[in-house]
């Protein structure tokens, strides 16, 4: 998250400053990829790039604070992920569910990863073992940094349902950690 300076960074980016936009990108893209690598593992990079293109197109008209910005970015990416899953699937109505976690190739290939990031990938595989809805809620809350109400709006669910999903997801994660004795 950018924090206090967000407003001025956004304004500069909307005024055409590449440096400012780059800051938005570097702040948002890692979180976006972590989210997408769990909910759309086969197309995460493509979906992220598509989402950014769309954000660039609408950037001048965007109004909002950093929560709103993140919400917009992740909403855009989520929509693209759903489109992409639909495109890849013969049964569009099941596309999202099928691409969602459970059997994800997020498992770290240690040779490709800097040591300090193995922990991040392991944690992502852990989230990926949750039921899809719980995994998505956890990612949007923890990785995207969105508050409960924003996640509820984004997912089209009630704030209460989102809170329950977060709670269950965290307990499930704790359970997996206890069972497998994983040390990240």
């Amino acid at each position, binding site marked *: 998250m950018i924090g206090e300076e967000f407003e001025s960074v956004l304004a500069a980016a909307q005024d055409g400053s590449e440096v400012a936009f780059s800051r938005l990108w570097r702040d948002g893209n*890692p979180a976006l990829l972590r989210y997408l690598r769990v909910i759309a593992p086969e197309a995460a990079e493509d979906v992220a790039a598509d989402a950014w293109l769309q954000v660039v197109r609408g950037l001048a008209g965007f109004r909002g604070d950093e929560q709103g910005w993140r919400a917009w970015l992740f909403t855009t990416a989520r929509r693209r992920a759903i489109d992409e899953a639909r495109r890849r699937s013969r049964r569009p109505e099941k596309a*999202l569910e099928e691409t969602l976690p459970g059997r994800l190739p997020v498992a770290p290939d240690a040779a490709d990863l800097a040591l300090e990031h193995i922990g*991040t990938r392991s*944690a992502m595989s852990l989230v990926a073992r949750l039921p899809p809805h719980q995994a998505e809620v956890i990612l949007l809350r923890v990785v995207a940094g969105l508050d409960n109400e924003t996640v509820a709006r984004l997912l089209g669910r009630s704030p209460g349902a989102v809170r329950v999903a977060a709670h*269950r997801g965290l307990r499930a994660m704790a*359970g997996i950690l*206890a069972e497998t004795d994983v040390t990240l």
Partner: protein
Amino acid sequence: MPNFLWPDHRDVPTIGDTSLAALLAGTELPPGSAPELRPLAEALAELRGQPATDELEGEAGTLAAFRNQFGAPRIAHRRPARTQPPRRRLLPVKAAAAAAALLSLGGIATAAYAGALPAPVQRLAHDIIGAPPPGRQPAPTPSSARSVTTGDPAYGLCTAWAHAKVHGTRRQRAVAFSRLAAVAGGAGKVTAYCATAAPPGVSPSQAPQPSPAPRGTGRPSLLPAPHASGKPSGLPSPHSTGAPSVRPTPRDTGKPSGLPTPSQTSARSQDQTAR
């Protein structure tokens, strides 16, 4: 809803509200929370970890799109509809700047000194580089006896000729010289005529007439600025002519501020029916 019941994970303690909030926000777990929550807090911290190198790849592509969208200067995203009145006010300024730029090129300067440009441009040339102002009367009949009061046209034509000799094309040299010779009373009298030429302003009433000349139809659209060439509806900036890259109203494109968007909503119902 009894979210404290989760039989699948019998070893996992209940997560209280404050612990839940702390875990989700990434803040310190409250004192007294179950030790089993520590590994979970660490896993969540990893989820928020510093960006990896591969998470910062691909910036170039997005930046290229950004550059394309916001393009040259900062006018790109402003709304065309409302720029109409300011544009009119801007036009003379831009035209003057463009004319000045162009006039600094030898050939046009020659035409300007020869009084051969369309009236608006000629006026600019007069203001900027001291070329003769545009006149409304037909040129006075060349007289062999030039009086002192003809200093202004003489100066302009002589300067044009001097300029054309150095910088002009053959045609421009010919035009400048023939006009000068006509005023001076013959090709042989040019040097003597110019020796006594006074700088402009000495007798403005004697301005020479801008003739339709080498290049000219006399249309004001000879102005070099791109938007003067007949695109009244275009944005003032050059890239506005590349229509597809500039969205006229950004609101049309995305719905940045509204959260649950139509396709979002449909996705949601998909999601629900899939369960």
